[in-house]
């Protein structure tokens, strides 16, 4: 009898110990200011959910992408929450690699997520990733240099105005370049900018039958315009400049204008790092009067891989990190200017946020101006503004990006770059079975 009691006691004690042990979830993420801030604020989550322990894996964007792709494709189950972008979400959801987020809690208010962002993260009306921060692209410009050139930046400028202003603002002797744009090869580097720009020129990657369109006049106009503008008003060695290089140039006062991610606004307006913090103005990305602007749409989002054993805890975490309460938590600790932008409509209606972030309205307008399902003037068979949401795009985009970067560097002509892009893309799309 005593022995039985002892065994039962031991069993229940060990069961209790197991239940009391915190469940640990592993979150894969990228290294940027908003994500690091979230890691510092997790006490709030763990105090509300003492049974869940958080483990972080932070990696560089490309390594992270490769790492989580390997894990999710092999159902490795190493991660319970993954930070992925708008490019991956529709592809991975269709593959059955992600769990739909249908259990985020009654007070989550999914309807508050900005529709353009939610659209990019949903498949068949189901949300497969919750946006942590969203971004578009817009123009950041030096108000003082614009004034010196005798011009006034309209809120929604045309490419013609931007090109004219860039040439007038350029002062090589004073080391000021009228415009800084991405030139570094990569599907998420120069091709993000050029694909979005091409949309405003009426170009598209593929027609309705997946035939590449680089041999069409719209692409030639886009690339001619870009290369000429950069030669006349861009910085030296622009073909190796990406986001960070242009950020440094702009912060040092060497760029009149810079068209890039809206998230850059918080960097260039920060007096700690930026020498031009009090002289920056913002405007919508340019257009060509064709009804589409040259801005993109991206959201770093939290998704749950289908291979996880801890789906409930993972959903709780995703709901916490992308909630309205989280935004308020960041605001209370670090101020409204540091709240992750671009995810919730209510944030942009908040007068405190509007006061703290002068770029708030422009960010929201830019996000709303992008339509992933109809990114350019003509109809397309794909989803995505600055990318084509098909698995082949990473390699195609980078190959074409290398050709366009070479055209910018003067290593080949615009015509040659486009002809080769057409040839390579046609070959790969035929091989992949898109072109019958």
């Amino acid at each position: 009898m005593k022995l039985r009691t002892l065994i039962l006691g031991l069993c229940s004690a060990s069961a209790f110990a197991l239940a009391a042990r915190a469940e640990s979830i592993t979150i894969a993420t990228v290294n940027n200011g908003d994500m690091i801030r979230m890691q510092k604020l997790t006490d709030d989550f763990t105090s509300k959910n003492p049974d869940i322990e958080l483990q972080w894996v932070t990696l560089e964007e490309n390594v992270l992408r490769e790492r989580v792709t390997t894990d999710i494709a092999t159902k490795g189950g190493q991660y319970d929450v993954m930070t992925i972008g708008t490019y991956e979400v529709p592809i991975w959801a269709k593959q059955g690699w992600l769990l739909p987020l249908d259990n985020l809690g009654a007070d989550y208010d999914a309807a508050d997520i900005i529709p353009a962002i939610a659209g990019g993260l949903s498949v068949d009306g189901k949300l497969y990733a919750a946006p942590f921060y969203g971004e578009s692209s817009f123009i950041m410009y030096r108000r003082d240099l614009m004034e010196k050139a005798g011009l006034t930046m309209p809120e929604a400028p045309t490419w013609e105005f931007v090109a004219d202003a860039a040439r007038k603002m350029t002062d090589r002797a004073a080391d000021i370049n009228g415009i800084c744009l991405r030139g570094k090869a990569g599907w998420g580097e120069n091709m993000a900018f050029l694909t979005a720009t091409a949309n405003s020129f009426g170009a598209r990657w593929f027609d309705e039958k997946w035939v590449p369109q680089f041999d069409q006049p719209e692409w030639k106009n886009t690339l001619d315009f870009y290369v000429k503008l950069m030669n006349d008003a861009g910085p030296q060695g622009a073909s190796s400049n990406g986001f960070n290089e242009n950020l440094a140039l702009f912060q040092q006062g060497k760029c009149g204008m810079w068209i890039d991610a809206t998230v850059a606004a918080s960097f260039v307006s920060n007096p700690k790092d930026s020498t031009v913090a009090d002289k920056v103005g913002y405007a919508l990305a340019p257009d060509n009067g064709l009804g589409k602007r040259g801005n993109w749409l991206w959201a770093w989002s939290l998704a749950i891989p289908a291979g996880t054993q801890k789906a409930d805890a993972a959903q709780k975490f995703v709901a916490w990190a992308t909630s309205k309460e989280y935004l308020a938590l960041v605001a209370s600790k670090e101020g409204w200017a540091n709240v992750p932008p671009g995810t919730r409509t209510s944030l942009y209606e908040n007068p405190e946020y509007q006061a703290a972030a002068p770029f708030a309205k422009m960010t929201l307008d830019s996000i709303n101006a992008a339509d992933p399902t109809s990114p350019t003037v003509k109809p397309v068979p794909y989803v995505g503004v600055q990318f084509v949401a098909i698995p082949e795009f990473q390699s195609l985009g980078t190959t074409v990006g290398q050709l366009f970067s070479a055209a910018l560097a003067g290593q080949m002509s615009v015509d040659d770059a486009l002809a080769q892009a057409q040839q390579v893309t046609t070959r790969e799309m035929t091989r992949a079975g898109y072109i019958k």
Partner: protein
Amino acid sequence: MARAVSTRTKIGFSIAAWLIALLIFFPILYTIITSIKTEAEAIAGFDLIPSVTFENYVEVQTQRDYFKPFMNSVIVSVGSTLLGCLVAIPAAWSMAFAPTKRTKDILMWMLSTKMMPAAAVLVPIYLLFRDSGLLDSRIGLTVMLMLINLPIMVWMLYTYFREIPVEILEAARMDGASLWNEIVYVLTPMAVPGIASTALLNIILAWNEAFWTIRLTTTDAAPLTAFIASFSSPQGLFWAKLSAASTLAIAPILIMGWFSQRQLVRGLTFGAVK
């Protein structure tokens, strides 16, 4: 007879040697310099005399814990080397002193495995690790690193052992030494520089291995390579913090290399002169 060398030639060679050494060491030196710059200075361009700040080191330490990845690096690099020695020494011994017709082919075949790009076998290895529960484990990583470096270890040890005259071993046998005594008392003392330099080189290779150590780990077994990778960022300035993390990561191995350089050089040039 030693060749007479003029002082001028000596100075010339010394300067050339220093310049080459500086050229080789420069990337590490510049990493250290960048780590004490501010982020804005770090990306601004080439500048050897920065404003000295240790902010990056503080930031790196507050963002992530250094000690855990450091211990993982020590365990997997030393562990894989010890494990590698256990396999490579007998293998190299048999190839050097009891070669067969196929020994050369086996050696070439072993080396050929190093010629394949690692990414080509990522998925099969990942699946093997997943099914055997070795993902994110120090044991799995230790075995993986041992296997990666094994061909180099065997090759190096084989070349060292080949330099040892067989006659000495035969003489030991004539004196009645058993195989065990022959290996322990005759062969090993003569091969110590070779074994030591092979082990040191293997520790360095394992410490710096960044493909598998990042891809097969998540949190528990992640070594310093993953620690460095976590400071790179697509949006935002990170060069100074990345350099600080790199300096912290390479410091132990750099110090170890510094103190063991005599042993390393001796081992690497062992057998060059007869």
